[in-house]
């Protein structure tokens, strides 16, 4: 049993109807906001299916929206989204609900979602709970806390709301029409639920209860949790797990085989490229040898010509250079600098 706020900074609250957020987790919302967390509230239905003693009123949707806005302000919720899907028929709008929650996951990026339970007795609540559970399985990376409706839920986390209970009470009292013009009755009912939890911690106080999950449970784990381990005896379960394990093994084997095949293909390609490269190198070496032979004979000829030229014209050139570039002149300094640069790039001495 955990007591305290589950660690979170960005909390998405899913309310099937306007009022569920206040009744089920109003105190927890206030506590999170006081701790500096950001809370976004997504209300899914329009609340139109409410039964009133004097019949249906066309303005009920508008009124419930006003009540929601007032309650959200009391709780301190700054981000409020309304889907306005038909109350009581959420099971027929799974695509829209999924799309809206996915959008919240992408845009708001919550680290905790507070949702009704998938085993709630109200079909709208159960629909939201099951959809959230499905998304939890598909896109993990956040924690999920199922909150209580009127029927108690088996919980593993209690959040003390004693200090903030007056705000919860005030928020609930915003819902005059939503709560059949008897908000006090509902406050007392949920107050009683919250008080009852004090028996679990052996001290007086008010506590909101949650089933907090950090990893997605299987259907069987949910049933096991909700029924305290009671299940119809299923001899097939161990074999079903075996099927899953064999399937996993086969998948891993196929993945490995695919990788090995890919590596083998890459190895073969590299080997082919290497062979081709070797062949090209051999060809290049042959060309180089032929070139060296050609260049070698040509260089020899040039050297002979150069020697002949040097013998004939070196004294003549030296004379003219000394005249054109007298020693100690700036022109001579430039000439010497050029010579030094030439020496840097050639192995021959300037005199040569």
């Amino acid at each position, binding site marked *: 049993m955990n007591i305290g706020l589950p660690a979170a900074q960005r909390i998405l609250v899913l309310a099937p109807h306007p009022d569920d957020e206040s009744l089920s987790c109003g105190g927890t919302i206030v506590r999170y906001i006081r701790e500096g967390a950001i809370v976004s509230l997504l209300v899914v239905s329009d609340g139109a299916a409410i039964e009133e003693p004097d019949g249906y009123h066309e303005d009920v949707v508008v009124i419930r929206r006003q009540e929601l806005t007032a309650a959200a302000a009391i709780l301190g919720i700054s981000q409020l989204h309304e889907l306005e899907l038909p109350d009581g028929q959420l099971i027929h709008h799974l695509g829209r609900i999924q799309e809206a929650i996915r959008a919240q996951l992408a845009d708001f990026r919550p680290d905790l979602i507070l949702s009704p339970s998938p085993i709630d007795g109200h079909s709208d609540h159960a629909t939201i709970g099951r959809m959230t559970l499905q998304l939890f399985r598909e896109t993990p990376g956040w924690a999920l806390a199922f909150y209580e409706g009127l029927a108690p839920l088996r919980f593993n986390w209690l959040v003390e709301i004693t200090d903030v209970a007056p705000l919860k009470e005030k928020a609930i009292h915003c819902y005059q029409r939503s709560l059949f013009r008897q908000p006090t009755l509902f406050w007392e009912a949920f107050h009683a639920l919250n008080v009852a939890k004090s028996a679990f911690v052996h001290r007086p106080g008010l506590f909101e209860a949650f089933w907090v999950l950090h990893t997605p449970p299987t259907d069987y784990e949910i049933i096991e949790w909700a029924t305290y381990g009671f299940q119809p005896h299923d*001899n097939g379960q161990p074999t079903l797990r075996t*099927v899953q394990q064999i399937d996993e093994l086969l998948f891993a084997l196929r993945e490995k085989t695919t990788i090995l095949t890919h590596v083998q293909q890459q190895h073969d390609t590299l080997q082919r490229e290497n062979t081709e490269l070797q062949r090209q190198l051999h060809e290049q070496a042959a060309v180089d040898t032929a070139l060296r032979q050609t260049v070698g004979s040509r260089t020899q000829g040039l050297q002979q010509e150069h020697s002949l030229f040097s013998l004939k014209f070196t004294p003549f050139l030296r004379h003219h250079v000394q005249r054109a570039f007298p020693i100690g002149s700036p022109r001579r300094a430039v000439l010497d600098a050029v010579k030094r640069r030439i020496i840097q790039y050639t192995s021959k001495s300037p005199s040569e």
Partner: protein
Amino acid sequence: MRKRCAILTSFDPYAYKGGIETYTRQMLTVLQAHGVTVDIYHTEHVPETGEPQSSVPFLHSPFLNSLYRVGRAFYRVDHQYDFAVAHAFFGFAYTPPRIPTFTIFHSTHAQYAEANRELFSPEWYFEVKHLFGLGAERLSTIGKKVIAVSDMVAHEAVTHYGATDVVTVLTGVDQTLFFPRPNKHELREQFGVPPDAFVGVFVARWDLDKAVDVLEQVMERTPEVFWLFVLGTGAQCPFHGRANTKIVENIERKEIAIILSCADFLFHPSRYEGFGLAVAEALACGLPVIAAPVGVVGSVLQQLPVQSLLLPSYATGKEQVITAAIDCIHRLQRDSDLRQACARAGPELVSRSLNLPQWEHTLLTTLGLTTEKSAEVQPPSPKEGYVS
């Protein structure tokens, strides 16, 4: 009050022509005739549960995962039915069964994998034996009554899967379609088969597990035989356009019956069969059958005086099987008495043990839809040209 039954299978029985689909259609007819309302669920028709469907697969194998979805969805709606019937491992994920559930084993994948282990990759063997067989098929026996199509399959279900509640319901042959036809020459003309040829017929998929490698070698060594191939879907046969050979593919059952009547013998060397419907149908047509001792051949055909046409087991070696097959063909070719004995014995056997009304009655009794004894069932009235 009408009873309601759900059939869990893999593919739409009206869109495919496989053996299980044929069986499903026949079973549907029988159940409906007995006032049972039947819904058929398969991978393309999953029960409606009204619940969001997870897009995260439970299993990596797409086929098995589709079946898992069918089974789990059926678990949500099973209270709407009085009983369920599943083929092979196709209903494996319906667990624990909360209504009486029957699993029909047309074969066992565990034994099928063993029989063909040498032919395929270790990966294939692992998948067929362990995933389909010892995993999904074993799960299909837990808490469910197993209906085996032959004693051999029943034995395999017990030995491989530890099944405890097993009953054999021999598949029946529709003798209104499969019966001896005296006008062989006319039929041959109709199908373009030489009137005086000695004709062997092969009815199966063109696949290694059907021992097409053995067939090819036998063909090479019996050039005097004209071969008719009646092929289902599967791998391509390489003998299109070959002399002394005719191939027909994807045909209706009525035409199969006529083609069988064109031939002098059925060659069925398959390495593994659960039942071997092609063998039973050929027997019903009065055709001598040269076959490996598997399936119904293993449990029923050995009672016949024509058991000399049974091939040795593959355990003795492929060459032994080929030599024996060639010997059987030559004996049949020269021994008209043997051919006539087969023509008499086959239809009698089918009328006695493998007829459709018998299957229907045994099946209904097993499903708890009738309490009468199956032994009282009468064979169908002989058709024109029926040899008795």
